[in-house]
């Protein structure tokens, strides 16, 4: 690691101020940031640790689930109210990393980092989450802008997520055999107004919605409805673990399995 100055602000206002400087980096769980710094791939002048802020917690009320940005994956995975409201979201959290990573990693950190193979972005997009920051509220569609890129401005900090409760939903993840990140992750959410399908792990510009699947599933919510719809391999990632054609194929398989398992 390169040297940096460490800050642990006690208020959001202080955190925003500290995080506003050019070379500062915000640290939530640090599960991505620290390995990056250890490999000297990042050289922040300042680390603004959010662990001193009161940003954790899960609340279910009025058809909405609110999750604080500093809520750990393990706490999302283990929350009984969430398991009743949106079991798919709790199950997704339980598939991130490993038990030790889930004890430290946070939903806010994961979403803000927008790793194209991360799990949470698919839930945000499919569930139509509202992302609340230190200065505004954003729809998930507006938040994710590309690979590791979001609409967050310098110093802007995600504080919480508001997820509408769907009729049913499910997340299916196909893991990279080495990293265990998603090669393809498909989140399917059925609302009264229609079905939303979001895909992570596969897109070369990050998480995306599968509108053809959405349209078909909104008409008939069954695996047969999307059986014949071919996902194009254009714009999908290719690496030694999965080429674009395989990813395209897996999107269909995972989507059908998600529809089948949705509850």
């Amino acid at each position, binding site marked *: *690691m390169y*040297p*940096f*100055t*460490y800050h*642990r602000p006690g208020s959001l206002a202080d955190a925003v101020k500290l995080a506003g400087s050019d070379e500062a980096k915000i*640290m939530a769980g*640090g*599960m991505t940031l*620290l*390995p990056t710094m*250890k*490999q000297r791939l990042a050289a922040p002048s300042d*680390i603004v*640790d959010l*662990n001193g802020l009161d940003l954790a917690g899960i609340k279910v009320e009025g058809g909405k689930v609110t999750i604080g940005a500093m809520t750990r994956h*393990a706490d999302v995975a283990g929350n009984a109210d969430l398991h009743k409201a949106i079991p798919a979201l709790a199950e997704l959290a339980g598939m991130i*990393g*490993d*038990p*030790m*990573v889930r*004890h*430290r990693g946070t939903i806010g950190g994961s979403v803000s980092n927008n790793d194209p193979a991360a799990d949470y972005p698919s839930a945000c997009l499919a569930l139509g989450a509202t992302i609340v920051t230190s200065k505004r509220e954003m729809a998930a569609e507006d938040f994710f802008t590309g690979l590791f890129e979001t609409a967050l401005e310098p110093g802007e900090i995600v504080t919480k997520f508001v997820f509408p409760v769907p009729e049913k939903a499910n997340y299916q993840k196909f893991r990279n055999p080495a*990293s*265990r990140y998603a090669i393809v992750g498909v989140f399917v959410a059925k609302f009264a107004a229609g079905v939303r399908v979001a895909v992570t792990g596969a897109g070369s510009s990050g998480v995306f919605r599968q509108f053809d699947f959405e349209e078909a599933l909104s008409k008939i919510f069954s695996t047969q409805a999307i059986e014949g719809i071919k996902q194009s391999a254009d714009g999908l990632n290719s690496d030694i673990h999965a080429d674009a054609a395989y990813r395209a194929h897996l999107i269909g398989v995972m989507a059908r399995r998600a529809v089948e398992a949705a509850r």
Partner: protein
Amino acid sequence: MASVTLTVNGKTITRDIDPRTLLVEFLREHMRLTGTHVGCDTTQCGCCTVHVDGKALKSCTLLAVAVDGSTIMTIEGLAKGEDLHPMQAAFREYHGLQCGFCTPGMIMSAVDMVRRKGTDLDDKTIREELEGNICRCTGYHNIVKAIHYGAEAMGKAGTAAE
């Protein structure tokens, strides 16, 4: 430099450290607790697993300053003198280790697994919950067995609730 106070295996110490210091470096270099190991750079192998405020974490991906004030348990703090923790005893009894390098992390993970999942653990659960620990020697067969019986023994000994 930053001042850090940690209670490690029951002993409270305060040190001035470079903020870059990882918890594993703090344990190994400042406290000479070399039972916690480093086996990778990518937070995957789990050799560095310790308990921070009762939960298993990877000490290679944690700044020591970030856990200032915490209570840490390392592999060295698990046994009470010569009396092994039931999970340690199970690893020995069921031959759940060979070279021993991943073992401290495995045992710390296993104890945490019992805290989260209870003392009646089936093989499938154990294998899934070991996602964050890599062993190159044992093929996991005997680790799974050791954790199964270690968990059972923790239940009988009443250590699971500690």
